[in-house]
């Protein structure tokens, strides 16, 4: 039950095409990641909505195959 960081990044970018994605593998075990996602599409949305957009891009893997993804979202200026 682990995911490769590149797969996480790819899925997020497929769901949010303009996203800049930085991923850190926190524990080196392929199971605990921290991601910062920056996108102009986050503008005007609440944090909950921004995170939901990322979770939606991950197509149900969050909480499943992807146990721990500490998420920070940033609304890009453009």
């Amino acid at each position: 039950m682990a995911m490769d960081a590149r797969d996480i990044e790819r899925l997020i970018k497929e769901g949010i095409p303009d996203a800049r994605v930085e991923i850190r593998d926190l524990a080196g075990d392929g199971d605990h990641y921290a991601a910062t996602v920056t996108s102009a599409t986050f503008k005007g949305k609440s944090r909950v909505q921004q995170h939901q957009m990322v979770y939606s891009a991950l197509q149900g893997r969050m909480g499943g195959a992807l146990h721990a993804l500490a998420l920070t979202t940033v609304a890009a200026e453009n």
Partner: protein
Amino acid sequence: MTDANQAIDNEVKSNDVVLFMKGTPQFPMCGFSSQVVQILDYLGVPYKGINVLEDESIRQGVKDYSNWPTVPQLYVKGEFVGGCDIAREMFQAGELQQLLADKGIAAKQSA
């Protein structure tokens, strides 16, 4: 509404601050749940902790209720505030304290 949905709705609307978590506030069973407990305890906010590990229908139900894939989940006055990352971000920015104050929820201390 399913029974679980109804039970969750009832909890978040009848308690000012509700935390759905793994374990209990005294014995959190997950690091993310533990972080939110620490924030709420630090702020001295009274809250109801609900252990999703005790009831599979609540564990799944709370994810459907908020369209949020993970636990913990923090609710204030019936409104979903966020999970661990958002609670921590808001706490660090002072926004969580402001939200609680705006909702008329007294913290025991003003940090």
